[in-house]
């Protein structure tokens, strides 16, 4: 499946002018608030109408101003999970779930409803009404409701933004499971780097209504030139495998030969997972430091340096084939004489890897 978008639309404060293509998997529209992410997803859903452009999902043209094609929202078959769950207050959870099912075309792949209910843990709340559900439960029902309508693709507009931290931690794994167990492409809007690092297959970076970069998640996250939330929030994403669980509460990971110790994650040996490493947690040293408390000292090579406008700089490192970002001062870059190709050591405190920075 591919999503192909080319739209232009005047908005209140700027002009949205976005063109991108996305392959299967989870595509994240990434950018700060007001960058036009929601406008893009609403245009795809047909809730707003761009002045010019063309949108195609999986060979079906949803809109094309050149040919005058315009598919009504209810004919697009895109499941939309809104930030505010938007459940129907007068219907039970079961009826909310079933609302879109009658409109699923006969030739669509049948939805395994039991599997959806089971995966989202909805079994116990089918007879309840939305008014009695917590925010996290509502969002789970909203995901299920979208899946039941047998959509071509799932759209999610910051589905976690309205939830508190605990609820976020509760819902995010459902999206990971959705990505891994259901063969459904997802377009996910987010301005939270940790979410992006855990979910994204492809990242589309939006800035002031324009696409700044499209690429595989690992590459885009580790690009020092692309920092949609500012260099302070930059961070790379490592794909790793659980190597061992240690008795002292640490989990050892293997990322392409690189050994990494992080606080314990409840996973089996051999499980694959993703770790988001924030650039500001990474320290650099020219020589291997001795007698240091940090547990992760990783041999690496400098690939790219982006000097910031302020006192900071972002250094992109290659550590055993993994791309890592380190945020240091420009003064340090000068003092250490850093330049591309230079070997050095990246230092990462194990405890600086937060629990929500680790996903499957």
């Amino acid at each position, binding site marked *: 499946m591919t999503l192909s978008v080319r739209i232009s639309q005047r908005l209140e404060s700027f002009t949205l002018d976005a063109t991108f293509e996305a392959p299967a998997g989870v595509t994240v529209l990434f950018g700060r608030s007001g960058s036009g992410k929601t406008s893009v997803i609403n245009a795809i859903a047909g809730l707003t109408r761009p002045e010019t452009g063309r949108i195609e999902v999986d060979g079906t043209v949803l809109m094309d101003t050149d040919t005058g094609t315009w598919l009504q929202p209810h004919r697009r078959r895109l*499941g939309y999970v809104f930030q*505010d769950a*938007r459940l129907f*207050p007068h219907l*039970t959870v079961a009826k909310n779930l079933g609302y*879109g099912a009658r*409109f699923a075309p006969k030739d669509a792949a049948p939805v395994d409803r039991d599997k959806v209910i089971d995966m989202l843990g909805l079994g116990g709340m089918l007879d309840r009404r939305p*008014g009695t559900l917590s925010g996290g439960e509502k969002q789970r029902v909203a995901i299920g*409701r979208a899946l039941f309508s047998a959509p071509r693709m799932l*759209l999610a507009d910051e589905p976690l933004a309205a939830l508190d931290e605990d609820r976020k931690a509760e819902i995010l794994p459902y999206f990971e499971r959705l990505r891994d167990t259901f063969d459904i492409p997802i377009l996910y809007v987010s301005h939270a780097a940790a979410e992006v690092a855990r979910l994204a297959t492809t990242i589309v970076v939006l800035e002031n209504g324009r696409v700044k970069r499209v690429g595989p998640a690992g590459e885009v996250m580790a690009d020092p030139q692309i920092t949609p939330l500012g260099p302070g929030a930059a961070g790379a994403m490592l794909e790793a495998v659980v190597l061992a669980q240690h008795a002292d509460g640490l989990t050892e990971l293997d990322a392409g030969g690189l050994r990494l110790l992080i606080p314990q994650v409840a996973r089996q040996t051999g499980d694959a997972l993703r770790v988001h490493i924030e650039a500001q947690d990474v320290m650099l040293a020219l020589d291997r430091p001795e007698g240091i408390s940090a547990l992760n000292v990783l041999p690496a090579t400098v690939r790219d340096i982006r000097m910031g406008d302020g006192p900071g700089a972002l250094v992109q490192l290659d550590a055993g084939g993994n791309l890592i970002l380190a945020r240091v001062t420009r003064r340090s870059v000068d003092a250490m004489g850093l330049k591309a190709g230079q070997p050095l050591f990246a230092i990462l405190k194990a405890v600086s890897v937060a629990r929500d920075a680790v996903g499957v």
Partner: protein
Amino acid sequence: MTTWLGPAEWQAIALSLKVAVWATLAALPPGLFIAFALARWEFPGRQILNGLVHLPLILPPVVTGYLLLLTFGKTGPVGSVLEPLGIVFAFRWTGAALAAGIMAFPLLVRAIRLSIEAVDPKLEQAAATLGAPKGWVFVTVTLPLILPGILAGAILAFAKAMGEFGATITFVSNIPGQTQTLPSAIYAFLQVPGSESAAIRLVIISVAIAMLALVLSEIAAQRIARRVRG
């Protein structure tokens, strides 16, 4: 009972109920449509339509009744067209229902419009993304959510229709058995010396019907609200 109320009084009560029920039922579909248009659509003449709907509320009822007579009377522009088709309003109970319906219309539209404005259009958007066409969205999402407003508007309209006097007596006069509704009958009794007791009996009946309608609507509204809020 029959000795307490004379046949003329029973006639007035039955006629009033008939007029009010028909006025309310007939006003509901256009009232719902116009309320929806005013709440949701932008179109030229929206303010004019809004003003027209509210006109019976502000005009003296006698003026509304006279305008109805001019329009729907046998020689009026609408009345003369309808008469050959066998539809006559002037001096018939149907005319009383028309007058009552027109007088109740603003109250009906206001109540429904407020409830439509309280429905979040985002819910309807969500329904559309699930594949539901517009008509289906209206029937399965909008309508159930505005049911309390429709009910409140209908009860208000019914009460107004039961009590309508000025426009009715101007448009269809005060013919016992034809157009003599409860208020007209009370008025007629008050014109005849010695009929005060009959008037008082009808007044008591009026109060009882109004109270009953209010209580019923209150019960129904609570039930619906509980269902809608979940």
